[in-house]
């Protein structure tokens, strides 16, 4: 006999489900496959630990890439006497690399008040340690470089002091460009040298992708800020072309089960959407002269694919079959 009370309804539902599907799933119930569990590994438990990183880290990858490569563009602009572009690029480098990146990196720590412990030791075998030093060195070059450049262009000080400022600006800005290229690329090493299968199998691709996405993003931001010059357009073409090539590389260099997180699941879609936006789509838009649209497409693609790679790490690290397959590989 049935009644309309919720508890009786629930029992009816369970009976329906049991009848239709042959099994009622629930926490603490594991009858699929009979008495011997058939999940991969040990009850399907992860073999390595997926990353604990949250949204701050991909955002840091994004802004760190922009910052580092802005300093490179600023140096190029300075050499070829585009002082206004150099100033704008250094502002971009100082704000995203000197302020935003450290804030994001510190926010991601489990114990943010101990962030200075990063500089207790220098370990060249730890990409995280190298990254902390690279970011510090970049900030220590980009911020004084920007200040010196601004003081020099506004002719605040007279005579010899101004000449010294000019020299300091050049030195610091070139220094920030060197550390900038490392800031934009080391993040690929950081996740490439881990035990996560989908990451370490693509450790050669990752620094190229992160560095080039950083260069294209820096050029795109400067273009959106109004610098519609041929040099930045060329960099936009270059970055989009490299990213298109990487998209092809990723779809050819497949490792089956070991890196399936890149090609399946939501994480795979993030990678695909990101790579199409900052690869072929940005290239086509730029080809037809739609520079602002190409810049926006590239920026969104660069951001989405950074989130995609962290999502890939979480999926791949939780997948015992990927770990086994990568080790047998």
């Amino acid at each position, binding site marked *: 006999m049935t009644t309309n009370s919720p508890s009786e309804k629930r029992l009816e539902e369970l009976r329906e489900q049991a009848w239709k599907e042959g099994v009622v799933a629930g926490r603490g119930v594991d009858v699929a496959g009979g008495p011997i569990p058939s999940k991969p590994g040990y009850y399907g438990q992860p073999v390595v630990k997926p990353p604990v990183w949250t949204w701050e880290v991909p955002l840091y990858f994004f802004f760190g890439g922009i910052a580092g490569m802005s300093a490179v563009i600023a140096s190029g602009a300075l050499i070829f006497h585009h002082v206004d572009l150099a100033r704008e690029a250094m502002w971009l480098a100082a704000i995203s690399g000197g302020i935003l990146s450290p804030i994001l990196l510190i926010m991601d720590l489990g114990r943010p008040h101990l962030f200075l*412990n990063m500089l207790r*030791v220098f*370990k060249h075998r730890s990409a*995280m340690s190298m990254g902390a030093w690279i970011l510090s060195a970049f900030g220590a070059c980009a911020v004084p470089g920007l200040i010196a450049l601004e003081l020099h262009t506004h002719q605040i000080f007279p005579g010899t002091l101004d000449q010294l400022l000019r020299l300091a600006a050049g030195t610091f800005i070139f220094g920030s460009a060197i550390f900038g290229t490392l800031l934009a690329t080391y993040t690929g090493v950081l996740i*490439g040298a881990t035990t996560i299968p989908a990451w370490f199998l693509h450790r*050669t691709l990752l620094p*190229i992708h992160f560095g*080039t996405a950083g260069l294209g993003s820096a050029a795109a931001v400067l273009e959106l800020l109004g610098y519609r010059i041929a*040099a930045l357009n060329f960099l936009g073409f270059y970055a989009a072309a490299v990213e298109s090539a990487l998209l092809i590389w990723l779809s050819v260099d497949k490792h089956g089960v070991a890196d399936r997180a890149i090609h399946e699941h939501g994480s795979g879609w993030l990678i695909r959407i990101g790579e199409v936006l900052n690869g072929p789509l940005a290239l086509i838009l730029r080809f037809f002269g739609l520079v602002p649209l190409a810049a926006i497409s590239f920026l969104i693609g660069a951001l989405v694919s950074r989130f995609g790679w962290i999502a890939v790490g979480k999926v791949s690290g939780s997948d015992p079959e990927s*770990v086994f397959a990568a080790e047998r590989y």
Partner: protein
Amino acid sequence: MIGEGLQSTNQRKHSFVQDRVEVGFFTDPSVCIGCKACEVACKEWNQVPDDGFMWSGNSYDNTGHLGASTWRHVMFLEQDRAKGNQIAGPMSLDQDPFRWVFLSDVCKHCEEAGCLEACPTGSIVRTEVGSVLVQNDVCNGCGYCVVSCPFGVIDRRPAPLPDSGGAFKCTFCYDRQKSGLVPACAKVCPTESIVFGRLDDLRARGAERVQQLQQSGYNDAQLYDPTETSVRGIHAFFLILGEPEAYGLPPKPQIPTIYLKSAWTSAFATAIASIIATLLAFAFFS
């Protein structure tokens, strides 16, 4: 008295830390009874917080896996294989073969430790006895050790648990060892499935035990100690029945620093390519 009693290295006082002797754990599932005394002793001695109570449905294992608040974990494997030459009762003659294997998992204290290499604060160190120790007052919780451990042992403890935000794992009871005491899990193990002692002694003991078991019909008994890979051996090694995969153990664990060379090469090449592209852009399109 149980096992070798007071003669056992599990019950004697020692001075391994002072003498700088390499020590280890040898964990043998063929004598484990699945009592979980090691899990309880570890939690109690080290005051590790609970990490939630839930039913997993996975045999008698409701612990799940090693993590920031689980430093010993007893695994319960259900396998459709016979257990050696054991004589089954008349009831089981016409049934499918079945065996129930228990193994107490723990941090492996690698010879080449991924977590130790990855740590950017110098919080993770190697002790006098060869174990790997996290100094928790130094750890700032960057989480890089978590993705650098080939065994998925170390993890960052989530809020709101006590001391959250830092990375935690088995300490090899370094505090106890300094006072000449045996690690808590080995001390309580009633069948000496967990044996604590000098690493070279334990390796000999492990090899002997494998031989013994194979003679008794456990054809798939083997030692799990990846000395052939870049991890170069582990201080807490295991005897396993069957394949390592079934225990969630990686068959060929590698320390991730071996990937650094190719990754940095790619990074430097990208750095140079970006500089050249920028210079070309300004040189030809100004």
